[in-house]
């Protein structure tokens, strides 16, 4: 059974078809990349999986169960975390507090005991902090842990978003353009992080990315999307040499360059 299964999904905004009968499945433990030109429907696909929009038809299953009946806030609890293309952090909070929000789905205490701050709540808080601290160590965010997001450089923010998603302890993590806006050094850094997320955190990675270097380096399989339709899918090498991909997306003479 695949971890995530997207079957025959279609979505229209007004007259525009954003997704047209898209199907694919993500296996446990792999890094799966979605590539395609702007407007191909990649982010829409992510928004669909995180339940920010509703498909006109089709089915999305996670661990064999449909997630389409769940609200957007019920997705994290299943073990699906995500980052955003244009960073959506809690600007006025510190890095630590941002990551702690990721622990929200793991909370146990009810409102009254939180107001009283019972010993049980205290124990729970400490457990959350221990978990978050592991993520901070994992991503080397120690220098920033007490700083507010508003003053942080872009590359660090991107990493904090990854960290916040990891704090959920997800089975599947959706990365929306993790390398966009990063310097070449930071992109290399991100590449190793993604590798580590899979190997050391044991999470499956589904990502949307434009940087073909990064995609080729980290992903096991690649799905090519254009105009809301699946062009092809396969290993990075298969996809890169696929005639339709070269023609439709990279341009006629880009085959060798890529």
């Amino acid at each position, binding site marked *: 059974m695949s971890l995530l299964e997207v079957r025959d999904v279609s979505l229209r905004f007004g007259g525009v078809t954003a997704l047209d009968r898209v199907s694919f499945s993500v296996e446990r433990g792999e890094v799966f990349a979605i590539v395609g030109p702007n407007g191909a429907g990649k982010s829409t696909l992510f928004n669909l999986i995180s339940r920010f929009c509703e498909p006109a038809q089709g089915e999305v299953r996670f661990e064999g169960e449909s997630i389409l009946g769940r609200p957007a806030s019920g997705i994290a609890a299943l073990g699906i975390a995500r980052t955003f293309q*244009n960073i*959506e952090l809690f600007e006025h909070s510190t890095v630590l507090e941002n990551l702690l929000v990721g622990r929200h789905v793991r909370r146990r205490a009810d409102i009254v005991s939180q107001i009283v701050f019972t010993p049980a709540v205290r124990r729970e808080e400490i457990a959350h902090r221990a978990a978050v601290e592991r993520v901070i160590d994992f991503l080397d965010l120690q220098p920033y842990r007490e700083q507010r997001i508003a003053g942080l450089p872009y590359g660090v923010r991107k990493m904090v978003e990854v960290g916040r998603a990891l704090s959920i302890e997800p089975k599947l993590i959706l990365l929306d353009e993790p390398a966009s806006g990063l310097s070449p050094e930071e992109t290399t850094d991100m590449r190793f992080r993604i590798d580590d997320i899979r190997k050391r955190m044991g999470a499956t990675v589904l990502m949307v990315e434009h940087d073909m270097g990064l995609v080729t380096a980290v992903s096991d399989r690649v799905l090519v999307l254009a105009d809301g339709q699946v062009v092809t899918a396969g290993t990075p090498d298969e996809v890169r040499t696929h005639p339709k991909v070269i023609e439709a997306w990279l341009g006629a003479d880009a085959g060798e360059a890529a």
Partner: protein
Amino acid sequence: MDSLQLIVSGLANGCVYGLIALGFVLIYKATEQVNFAQGDMMMLGAFTALGLANDSHLGLPFWVACIGAVVIVAAVGWLLERTVLRRVFGQSQLAVVILTIALGFVLRFVAGTIWGHDPLTLESPIAGVNVRLGGLVLGLDEIAVVLVTLLLTAALFAFFRRTKLGVAMQASSQNQLAAYYMGIPVKRIHGFTWALAGATAAVAGILFASKGSIDPNTGLLGIKAFAAAVIGGFGSLPGALAGGLVVGLIEPFAARYVASGYSQVAPYALMLVVLILRPHGILSQVHGKKV
């Protein structure tokens, strides 16, 4: 016959609400700011006209006083934008809301200091004159209110639809930075909008004052006009007028057919119903945010 009379007086009241609501919408459409002091600007317009026209004050001819009031309140609006609101340029809507509420307090205080806190009446040539239409007795003031309102709404509507400036105003509200890049003088447009809203408020104030007495707390009428603007959908000029008329009409009828206590309650209850059923007003302009 009786209910016809109710309708006419309701329409006249509704037009005043509609005019204040028009001011809200005008500013909202062009700057995306919400001016909670619009009601107080209306009050200021009424008092300025009164101060210019009444014999106990300056005693200028009525029409001169009217034009004077419109010009003065427009200038006040422009000045407020220039000195105060421009400093919160680009900040959240809530900051502007709180700022304009505070400005309303200040305007009320200023008016109270100049003209006192007792109710005063504007000496207007159209007050108390009755017109006989068939069997119907209508106040000239009421007819004037309806006519002026219709004219003003139509003019503003055409302005936003047809003129280059009107379209530029709408553009600047939706994305200030992009509007800048397209060469739209965003700040100057904001100043102009506030002046326009001030002029509208002055007209509303004069019309309101010719129907009854005014005091510095008259500005609280703005809250009712808010209900009107919301009922009509915040971004629509005809909607604002329609909302004002609905509020104006519902008041006397609620008082007559339910109980007198309910005439105050009805507009707000209606607004809450509209907000719950259509959270962004009847003529909605809101779309979902993209991530």
